[in-house]
């Protein structure tokens, strides 16, 4: 079963506990429109209603069919909310009404629906997800082609790409009900006009309704449903603790590339990961050339990564030049058993020249299976920013050649003719290394022409006279290309590492700055200034204090409006980025990133950019994640420091109180000593005998009271540290009796001692204190003339010390007897601090004993202190009971 003490199990336990609070999702899955999903859902709803479930219809599309509409009759239908969009009033599902209504089950048709702009979520599946999280059970419908990971496959054979997709994760814990209809029957229904198709989509959708495509879609739906059942089974096994690990520890890694080709690879990886029940990681290899890709492709890369994240992958970015090697390396580090890569259709020539990543991965991957996903997209050019050399660079290259030619002219008599072409290589090499590739080529051309023109016969013509000149020309060109290419690569690598270094330096600087701050205001101000500067945007830090939003860090933005606040609250409650450019509440001007710490969410970092551009540039995503983490850490540190200061203050207060008590006790004790000594010195006879007696008794009482207070403060401060030693209880009992005799003749104690009682290992002073308190207490309640009995016995390994009186005894309800300031009935009359028994109990427990109270046979109270006698090592020295 589950053992919550192990980390892994604890995590699973939490997950299961979380799942239990969530609502259940039931999905009616169909292969195509018209199979009867809504009908079936409403039928089931009617049955549930009959069973007494509180069923409410959020959205149900009847498509104008009377049979379906009839099923709606008995059900409560929520009214839609109207959203005004560009002058059109659009009906949308009212999620707030649904949340407020909190039904037992809500029907929300058409999971893949896109909400009207201005709704809380852009997509209906997000509404459903929110309902599930809020603990509401939902039933919904979807067609197979709307499922994100199957989108490509469906588009592949139907040639209809559906834009409204639903991420697979929403089906993770859903119950899937397959609404199945054989293709022939469906086509029959279509022909009978029973399937409603919106006119605009009619033609496109009609493409679906060929027996072959419907059969394929049906097979996919069946497979998806079967697989989902399989996963639900494994979830349940996990809950019952019968299965806890991924099958055979499979782990999958997928290389995500820019371009449209990336998405199908990601989807393929997702399907594979699901089949293997494997966790998967999407890796971006940032090579020098990848860093050079253009902006639109960077955005595509970010989109592909976002897709991977939405399908449940963990993300990772690695900087390396050899994509294949880096990928294999990463796979090894993650112990991935499966590697998924995409492969464009490229010409053999292209591959020969550039090398194929797929080939290199297959060659290097030892032990891991490599899945190569062929990409339909036409051969994508390696989208690097072509290194365009400027006109001025080209001129510089040509000028270099000209200067060389000039110098050659001057020194020509001393140079052997065979060396001239070698000398002309110099400007080409310089231009190729120092300038760009094209400038190198310009230099090569200029050098070849100059060589031909000035240094070969016939001079001052461009006439090519010997094949050797062609060779020279070719050699110069090849040198320029090779060196230029190499130089370019080196330069790009330098740029990449400089970029990484800059990023790291920025982060290090940021971390350094964050570490030295105190106070939330200062931290927020510096964090916002730095983040704003680094990412070139506006930053604020919003937190929730006493349920009020507080905006810090940027004087220009003192507060946020209602929409922004909704996004902020969503971000901190759900722990996800919310607002502008995100999937949730994107009407907000700000994008909020929750500041998550081990102490909980400390608020959110709000980011905005005045222009229409994306808030987070694709290149900045990695850096932003680090900055958010650092900011969260800084906030956590400040809170922890605050708590530490509070604890310190408490300690200080405790210390002061202790010192105060100590000094008061000391100051009281000195005059009290004088009072007691003085009253003791007065003879108890003559006219004032009674007064003297009272003065004596009362000053003794005051003294006991003071001692009790001091002991109580020791107990409260936890400074009771027993001085362990071998103790003969006989000694303790006799010394208690001796002490009490000082109090005068009214202290009548008779003792009965088993002098063979073994020694106990204890603290003699604490024990004496206990007995004094118990005897004192007994004396208070004893009627005049009746003695208190103090008995010491030994039985069954324990020394038992009993204090017995003949007073009124203890009440039936003895609860709180050993509590502080508990006074027995009549206790006030006889006086006492109300601390005596509490102190006794604490002391006894400090030395490992027990104290009990009860009534004595024949009337009176009996208190018993039971102590374990010394055993083992303590009896080594020949302790005998003889």
């Amino acid at each position, binding site marked *: 079963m589950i053992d919550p003490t192990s980390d892994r199990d604890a995590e699973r336990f939490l997950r299961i506990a979380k799942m239990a609070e969530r609502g259940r999702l039931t999905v009616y899955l169909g292969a195509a429109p018209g199979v009867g999903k809504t009908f079936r859902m409403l039928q089931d709803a009617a049955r549930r209603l009959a069973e007494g479930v509180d069923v409410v219809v959020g959205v149900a599309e009847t498509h104008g069919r009377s049979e379906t509409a009839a099923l709606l009759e008995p059900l409560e239908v929520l009214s839609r909310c109207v959203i005004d969009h560009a002058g059109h009033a659009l009906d949308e599902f009212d999620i707030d009404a649904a949340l407020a209504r909190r039904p037992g089950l809500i029907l929300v048709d058409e999971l893949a629906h896109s909400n009207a702009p201005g709704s809380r979520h852009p997509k209906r599946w997000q509404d459903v997800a929110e309902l599930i999280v809020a603990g509401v059970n939902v039933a919904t419908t979807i067609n197979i082609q709307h499922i994100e990971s199957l989108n490509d496959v469906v588009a592949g054979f139907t040639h209809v790409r559906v834009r409204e997709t639903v991420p697979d994760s929403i089906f993770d814990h859903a119950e899937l009900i397959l609404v199945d209809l054989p293709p022939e029957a469906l086509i029959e229904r279509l022909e009978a006009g029973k399937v409603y198709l919106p006119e605009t989509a009619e033609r496109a959708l009609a493409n679906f309704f060929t027996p072959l495509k419907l059969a394929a879609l049906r097979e996919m739906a069946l497979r998806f449903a079967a697989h989902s059942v399989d996963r639900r089974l494994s979830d349940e096994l996990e809950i019952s603790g019968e299965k806890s690990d991924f099958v055979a520890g499979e782990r999958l890694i997928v290389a995500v590339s820019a371009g449209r080709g990336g998405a199908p690879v990601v989807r393929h990886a997702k399907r594979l990961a699901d089949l293997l029940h494997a966790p998967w990681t999407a890796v971006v290899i940032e090579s020098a050339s990848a860093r050079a890709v253009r902006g639109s492709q960077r955005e595509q890369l970010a989109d592909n990564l976002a897709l991977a994240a939405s399908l449940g992958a963990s993300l990772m970015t690695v900087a390396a030049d050899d994509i294949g090697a880096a990928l294999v390396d990463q796979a090894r580090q993650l112990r991935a058993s499966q590697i998924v890569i995409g492969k464009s259709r490229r010409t053999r020539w292209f591959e020969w020249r550039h090398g194929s990543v797929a080939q290199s991965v297959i060659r290097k991957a030892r032990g891991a299976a490599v899945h190569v996903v062929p990409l339909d997209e036409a051969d994508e050019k390696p989208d690097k920013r072509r290194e365009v050399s400027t006109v001025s660079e080209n001129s510089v290259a040509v000028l270099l050649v000209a200067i060389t030619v000039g110098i050659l002219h001057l020194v020509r008599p001393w140079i052997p003719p065979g060396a001239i072409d070698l000398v002309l290589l110099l400007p080409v090499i310089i231009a190729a290394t120092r300038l760009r590739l094209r400038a190198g080529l310009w230099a090569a051309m200029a050098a070849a022409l100059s060589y031909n023109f000035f240094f070969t016969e016939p001079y001052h013509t461009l006439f090519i006279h010997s094949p050797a000149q062609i060779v020279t020309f070719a050699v110069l060109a090849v040198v320029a290309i090779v060196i230029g290419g190499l130089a370019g690569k080196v330069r790009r690598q330098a740029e990449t590492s400089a970029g990484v270094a800059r990023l790291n330096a920025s982060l290090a600087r940021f971390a350094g700055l964050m570490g030295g701050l105190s106070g939330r205001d200062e931290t927020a101000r510096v964090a916002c200034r730095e983040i704003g500067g680094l990412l070139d945007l506006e930053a604020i830090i919003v937190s929730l204090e006493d349920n009020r939003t507080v905006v810090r860090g940027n004087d220009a933005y003192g507060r946020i409006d209602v929409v922004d606040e909704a996004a902020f609250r969503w971000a901190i409650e759900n722990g996800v980025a919310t607002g502008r450019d995100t999937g949730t509440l994107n009407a907000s001007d700000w994008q909020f990133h929750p500041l998550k710490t081990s102490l909980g969410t400390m608020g959110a970092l709000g980011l905005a950019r005045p222009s229409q551009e994306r808030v987070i540039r694709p290149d900045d995503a990695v850096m932003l994640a680090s900055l958010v983490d650092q900011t969260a850490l800084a906030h956590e540190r400040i809170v922890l420091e605050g708590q530490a200061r509070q604890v310190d203050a408490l300690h200080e207060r405790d210390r002061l109180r202790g010192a105060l008590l100590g000094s008061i006790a000391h100051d009281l*004790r*000195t*005059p*009290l*000593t*004088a*009072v*007691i*000594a*003085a009253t*003791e*010195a007065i003879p108890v006879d003559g006219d004032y005998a009674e007064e003297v007696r009272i003065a004596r008794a009362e*000053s003794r009482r005051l*003294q006991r009271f003071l*001692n009790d207070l*001091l002991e109580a403060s020791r107990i409260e401060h936890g400074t009771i540290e027993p*001085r362990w*030693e*071998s*103790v*003969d209880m*006989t*000694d*303790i009992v*006799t*010394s208690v009796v*001796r002490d009490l*005799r*000082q109090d005068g003749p009214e202290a009548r104690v008779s*003792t*009965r*001692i*088993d*002098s063979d009682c073994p*020694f106990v290992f204890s*603290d*003699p*002073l604490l*024990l*004496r204190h206990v007995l004094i308190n118990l005897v004192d207490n007994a004396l208070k309640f004893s009627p005049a003339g009746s003695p208190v009995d103090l008995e010491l016995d030994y039985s069954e390994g324990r020394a038992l010390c009993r204090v017995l009186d003949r007073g009124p005894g203890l009440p039936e309800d003895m609860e709180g007897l050993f509590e502080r300031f508990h006074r027995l009935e009549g206790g006030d009359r006889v006086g006492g601090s109300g601390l005596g028994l509490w102190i006794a109990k604490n002391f006894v427990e400090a030395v490992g004993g027990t104290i009990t109270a009860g009534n004595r046979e024949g009337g009176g109270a009996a208190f018993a202190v039971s102590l374990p006698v*010394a055993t083992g090592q*303590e*009896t*080594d*020295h*020949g*302790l*005998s009971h003889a």
Partner: protein
Amino acid sequence: MHSDVLIIDDEPAIRRLLVGALDRVGLSHIEAASAGEALRLAAGPQAPAVALLDLGLPDRDGLEIVPQLAAMGIAIIVLTARDATEEKVTALDLGADDFVTKPFDSAELLARVRSALRRKAGAIVDPLRREFEGGSIDRAKHAVLIEGTRVALTPREFELLWALSERPGRVMTHTVLLETVWGPAHRGDLDYLRVAIRSLRKKIERDASHPRLVMNEPGIGYRLANLSSQSD
């Protein structure tokens, strides 16, 4: 002229009380309010036989002057608070004779003072014979007499009683007794002492469960009852 008691306490009220008590029983006394003054008086012409020392002094810790006073042959009775067990043990180990816990009973205090004075006055007649309340111990004859009856003790019990009876009424700390009777290697073996005390009591006490000769000071040590010191 020598005096009987030196009162060392910075509290004038306590000093006046002690003076009153000593006056009533006719004991001579001198007073010091500080450690420095105490040392000066102790070395002066009025050198006392007994010092009543309050450990909380304004100029110095009272414990510091215990060895010096003891070296002058003065019997020291320490006045301490009830919970200051370690302080008592330290004072006794440093050479103090006895202690009285504040707030004190003046009758008990006077009894302790008289006991100390007697120890001082009772010059050792016979170095091999000691007396205590109700009995005597004779080292030469290896004989112990309790109320006229000879009691047979083991060598260890004999040594223990001999150590306790060196100065009856004076508190001997556990450590001192263990070192004297068993040797320095056993100064921590409190069990040895407990066992020996118990068997000694069985032989010399009238009722071992109500001891009147070998008295225990919990957490500190043992003392042998002095002649008439526990008269009340």
